């Protein structure tokens, strides 16, 4: 019989190991217009781990990613990212940290006045001192990873929703960041396109082993990620043999009413007795 899931309180990191983890949330709370969205949540993302954050609409999933990037400041609590306390950093200090993090936004958030090439190369161009020729290779590589090389001269408005999402992934991975944040990458997409996006995320996870936080309101996406691996020879996603662990540790974090009600792996999740969780996984 599997061990019971670790109590959430036991997972709260102490000061000493805060720097050893990639992302650490300690009793973080935030409210919008006096409505609490996150109420003292704590969790950590270990190096190389992928953590899927699940919750219903308005449960504060996207807020966690924005807090991680320092785009929002919490009302209380501490957030350590790559050893830095983002809650104490000023905006100009955060820009350096953000260059080590890639984020895929909910609706892609591609710059609509720029071409796909300029969007994907945005970070390289902003870091300066690179010519048009020098950006061509990494742009082609990133677009080739998401299998969209032929869209390089198109504008985002000429692409479908799924293609925009793939360009957003290419833009996030072009500099090989240390952390990747995905905000509902399959939101609003049809099932076939959703699977394509999940396959790309699994490919990214297994090929580059980047530590990732993935927000989703579709638990089946997270389960698919936990039960599949990327076969590099066949260049496609395949199911893991029953009981076999994936190459990269995969964890789940479930939010409800602003609190973390589950933090553990797929096996622990399947064993959970929580009625709310059972309702979603059954």
């Amino acid at each position, binding site marked *: 019989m599997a061990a019971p899931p670790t109590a959430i309180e036991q997972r709260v990191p102490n000061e000493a190991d805060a720097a050893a983890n990639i992302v650490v949330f300690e009793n973080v709370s935030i409210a919008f217009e006096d409505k609490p969205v996150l109420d003292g949540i704590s969790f950590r993302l270990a190096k190389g781990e992928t953590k899927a954050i699940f919750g219903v609409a308005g449960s504060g999933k996207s807020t966690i990613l924005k807090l991680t*990037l320092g*785009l929002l400041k919490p009302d209380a609590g501490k957030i350590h990212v790559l050893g830095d306390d983002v809650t104490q950093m000023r905006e100009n200090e955060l*820009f350096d940290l953000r260059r080590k993090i890639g984020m895929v936004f*909910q609706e892609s*958030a*591609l*710059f609509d006045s720029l071409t796909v090439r300029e969007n994907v190369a945005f*970070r390289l161009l902003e870091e300066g001192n690179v010519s048009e020729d020098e950006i061509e290779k990494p742009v082609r590589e990133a677009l080739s990873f998401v299998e969209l090389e032929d869209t390089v001269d198109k504008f985002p408005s000429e692409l479908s929703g799924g293609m925009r999402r793939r360009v957003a992934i290419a833009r996030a991975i072009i500099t090989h960041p240390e952390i990747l944040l995905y905000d509902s990458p399959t939101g609003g997409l049809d099932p076939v396109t959703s699977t394509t996006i999940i396959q790309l995320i699994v490919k990214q996870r297994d090929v580059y082993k980047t530590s990732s936080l993935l927000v989703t309101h579709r638990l089946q996406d997270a389960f698919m990620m936990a039960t599949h691996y990327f076969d590099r020879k066949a260049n496609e996603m395949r199911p893991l043999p029953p009981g076999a662990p994936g190459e990269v540790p995969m964890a789940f974090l479930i939010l409800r009413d602003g609190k973390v009600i589950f933090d553990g792996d797929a096996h622990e999740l399947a064993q959970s007795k929580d009625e709310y969780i059972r309702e979603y996984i059954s």
Partner: protein
Amino acid sequence: MEFSPTEFVKETVQSVQDYSLLAGRSVANLFLQPRYFADMIQQADLIGFGSLPIVVLTGLSIGAELALNSANTLQRFGSLSLIGQLVSVGMVRELGPIITGLMVAGRNASGMASELGSMVVTEQIDAMRALGTDPMKKLVTPRVVSTVFMLFFLTIISDLLGLFGGSLVSVFLFRLDWRQYWNTAYQILVFQDVFMGLVKPLFFGFIIATIGCYYGMTARGGTQGVGRATTQAVVASSVLILTVDLFVTKFLMAVFAYR
């Protein structure tokens, strides 16, 4: 929802504070790396060259209308020959900068608010910050610099076309001598007139860009919020231009111990 005077005052003070911060940062960024010269030139083209047709048309019309309306009064006193002086002083000191400022506010403050507002609601501003780029440096400062710079030259063009419009009315409708019109128009102007007329667009340009960017960057609530931000940007920048004009005029008159 019930109206709360305390909340209203708090929100107003907060807005003034946020606007002041944005305006201050837009200037401070000029002294910080990176500087976006390519974006400045692109914005200068959009704001300056793009506004040229409306500035040409309004400048020409205002000058002609000023001549047309004042001719009647001047004729009664047998002073029709002074029409060039009247148009010249009126256009250079006051109407040129004000009309150009209001036209550019209508065109560009709204454009900036809607463009930046759309970027906010589609998370493009957040994406820019997430990619390690400061939107204040990349988007706001180039717009402020370009608007201040281009409005200065647009005002000169407007002044000249206003004078030209006045000359067309004077020559073709009132049979004044062309040379006499331009001589009197030129000779009446003193340094203070020109200085006053060219200082104002610097203030107006700053108001247009900072107000447009402020309402854009603070847009909330989807497409409806963008529409609201656009309207507010035009109204606020127009009102502020007229108010600041009054104070700048009075201040410069006091400085120059002016007539």
